[in-house]
């Protein structure tokens, strides 16, 4: 317990977040609801890893359905180190216990967890890695990504799991993706989004500044730009994410599998008691919020508007990426988080999501590398990996 919810093979080198299915191994998604849920099949990403010869070490602990900051809402003993919140998979990579892990990024949790543990996590372009076999919440933005301690390891694992899968209707048609660490960083132009930089605390700003200096030392230019829709992107993604999550977790109703309340008088009571007893506070808040934004009379001004904002944000970010190879931003507002009162979870995650929302809502690839975030245009993962690889070498 703690880091692994279930150990599969002690000599394994890759961990799988517990929001991703491995055949016959319980997949809890960090929720009491799925405490004893054994999936009948493995996720496509897991199948591909195994086919490529990787041995799965176990199922890493996650926050309930992956909705939180970095794993603190897990029903199963969340991980903390020195009194600070840590993500299980990221911390296992940081400790060198595994080479890499795969996880689902739906609202930034793995990107934040990587930053808090000083490792990397890539959320690739939406549609490049199959979502078949993940405990899906925010279908329009979630992606399976890779945790590792170097850009080189990320490149290896991502190259294995990316590629078309006919079992996922949102999977893009390209069969295979080739990633590289060797793009010419010296000719690249990178920009920092002023509005996001200003939202971070001093330590985080210092990290960004230091990272910018290293990029410059590689010959790239770094400039500051303005993006006037970061808060709209944050709120819009919050709406879409919560609505989709509310809808997707509605299948966890105590009827077919998962937790069922021991006593009930009728079907309504079975639903209400099972879900009340098995879901944590953040999931409940997300369900209520998601339900509200889809309700009659609210749909036009909430959900539908969020869809329209998504388009505007995409256009504006794409416009920046027409002039720059990559965007550099904070991935968390702070460098560490103390455990907090669960009743504040919804606001807490919302507040932090301003940094992670743009890649989530646009589907653009993002790399959380050593405490900062790099964003590039669709399919330009190699730009991100080459920058991170170059920066790693300046540190070596």
């Amino acid at each position, binding site marked *: 317990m703690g880091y692994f919810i279930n150990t599969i093979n002690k000599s394994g080198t890759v961990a799988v977040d517990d929001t991703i299915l491995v055949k016959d191994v319980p997949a809890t998604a960090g929720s009491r609801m799925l405490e004893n*849920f054994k999936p009948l099949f493995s996720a496509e990403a897991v199948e591909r890893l195994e086919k490529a010869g990787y041995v799965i070490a176990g199922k890493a602990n996650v926050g309930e359905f992956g909705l939180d900051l970095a794993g603190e809402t897990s029903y199963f003993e969340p991980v903390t180190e020195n009194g600070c919140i840590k993500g299980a998979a990221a911390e296992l990579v940081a400790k060198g216990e595994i080479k890499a892990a795969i996880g689902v990024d739906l609202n930034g949790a793995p990107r934040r967890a990587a930053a808090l543990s000083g490792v990397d996590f890539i959320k690739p372009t939406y549609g490049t890695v199959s979502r078949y076999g993940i405990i899906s919440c925010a279908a329009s933005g979630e992606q399976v990504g890779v945790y590792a301690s170097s850009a080189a390891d990320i490149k290896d694992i991502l190259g294995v799991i990316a590629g078309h899968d006919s079992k996922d*209707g*949102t999977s893009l048609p390209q069969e295979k993706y080739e990633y590289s660490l060797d793009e010419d960083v010296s000719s690249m132009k990178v920009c920092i989004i002023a509005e996001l930089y200003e939202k971070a605390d001093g330590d985080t700003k210092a990290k960004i500044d230091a990272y910018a200096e290293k990029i410059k030392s590689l010959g790239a230019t770094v400039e500051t730009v303005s993006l006037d829709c970061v808060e709209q992107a944050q709120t819009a993604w919050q709406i879409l994410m919560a609505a989709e999550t509310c*809808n997707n977790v*509605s299948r966890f*109703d105590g009827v077919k599998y998962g937790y069922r309340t021991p006593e009930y008088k009728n079907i309504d009571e079975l639903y209400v008691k099972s879900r009340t007893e098995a879901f944590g506070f953040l999931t409940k808040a997300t369900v209520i919020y998601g339900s509200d934004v*889809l309700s009659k009379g609210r*749909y036009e001004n909430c959900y539908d508007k969020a869809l329209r904002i998504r388009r505007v944000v995409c256009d504006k970010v794409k416009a920046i990426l027409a002039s720059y190879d990559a965007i550099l931003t904070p991935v968390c507002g702070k460098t560490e988080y103390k455990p907090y009162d669960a009743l504040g979870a919804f606001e807490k995650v919302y507040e932090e999501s301003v940094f992670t929302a743009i890649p989530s809502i646009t589907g653009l690839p993002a790399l959380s590398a050593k405490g900062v975030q790099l964003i590039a245009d669709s399919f330009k993962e190699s730009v991100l990996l080459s920058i991170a690889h170059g920066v790693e070498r300046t540190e070596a």
Partner: protein
Amino acid sequence: MKYELVIGLETHVELSTDSKLFCSCGGHSSPKEPNDCVCPACSGMPGMLPVTNKHAIELAVKAGFMLNCKINQYTTFDKKSYYYPDLPCAYQITQWFNPICVDGCVDLGERKIGIKQIHVEEDAGKLVHDEATNTSFVDFNRTSVPLIEIVSRPDFRSADEVITYLKKLKSSLQFAGISECEEGAMRCDVNISVRPEGSNELGVRSEIKNMSSLSEIKDAIEFEKVRHVDAIERHTEMLVQETRRWDDVKRRTFPMRNKETAADYRYFPDPNLMPIVIDDEWLEEIRASMPATAEEKAGHYEEMGIAAKEAGVLASDRKLSDTFDKVVAMGCNAKTAASWILTECMGQMKRLELTSLEIEPAKLARIIELVEGGEITRAAGKKVLSAVFENDVDVDAYCEENSLSAKIDNSFILETVCKVIAENGKAVEDYKNGKVKAMQSLFGCVMKELRGNGSPDVIREMLEAELNK
């Protein structure tokens, strides 16, 4: 005051696809054991994603063509959320924002019924309640089976129009291979209101949910008309917009619990399913694969020399017309084939209480061939047909086993004729004394001896020759 009915229909029809709408489980097919036809996707397990069945989309487009609709070449799927144990994901995938077909019509001859839209959606499962153990079971076999919902405009003015429309819909959909439209596989929600004749305003509407039998639909509409008129004229009750059900035992509608109807379905576009774009090429491919309509078929049959009324009956049912087409293709004369199907086959169907024609066209063609070629008598042909309907026998083997051949040896007929003459002295004498009727009696005896075989003309000839010797 005279009142008129204003009725609109929402008709759900199961599509004839080999697999379900979003997974590869078998789709429309015969009843199985509960939960035989279920996978992680259609039972709502996490991790599975929907992948659209292309054939279902094509069938829906065909339905659009049949009903003169405009096809939306950009169409999307949406989620409709509600909790019920027969709905494993707690949402149904349907089309709310961009239905696949819009603005069509169905011509009922005197009147036209507008079609507002046709949309594709998945069916729900089935609950089975066991009173003995006070337990409810869920059967997901039907979950995610593809349906189309055909939404009419409120253009019906009588129960008869509704029934005519539904019959026509059924035959059109069967013809195009869109749906088998089997018993219970076509379900209707009937929206009904009443207003003074000539008025343009709409009255208070009730919706009668989930009706599948035509006679019940008719009865429910008649019941509602009386209820609404009574409420308006005699203030028997206060009409409210509500959803009702038909109670077939009490022969009346009753309101559903308010709770069931107050739901907010929280529709939103399904992010797991990309919009479907039907380009011109695909659209034309689907159009080219459309079979002839019932009207076109009937017209074609008339050209083949079949009377209008008979052509209409043949064309109205796919099984009848399919059998007819095949039998004719095997070389049978069209008029003869029509008469065998409409008289003899339908006679057998009536006798055996069958709702559809189930006969191998090759067997029917062989029977017709034998009768027309004089190999067996028409009476014998009917006997074989009856055996085919009952036990699906082999035509030639059955004829042989039962000595049905009309071409029996003439010497055997002569032998039988002589035998009958020898055994019926009285009748022979009568005949010789001029009683013509006696001839008929002797003829009957010979036929009886030959068990209906042998050409009647030959028998008569021989009998006369022997008697006149």
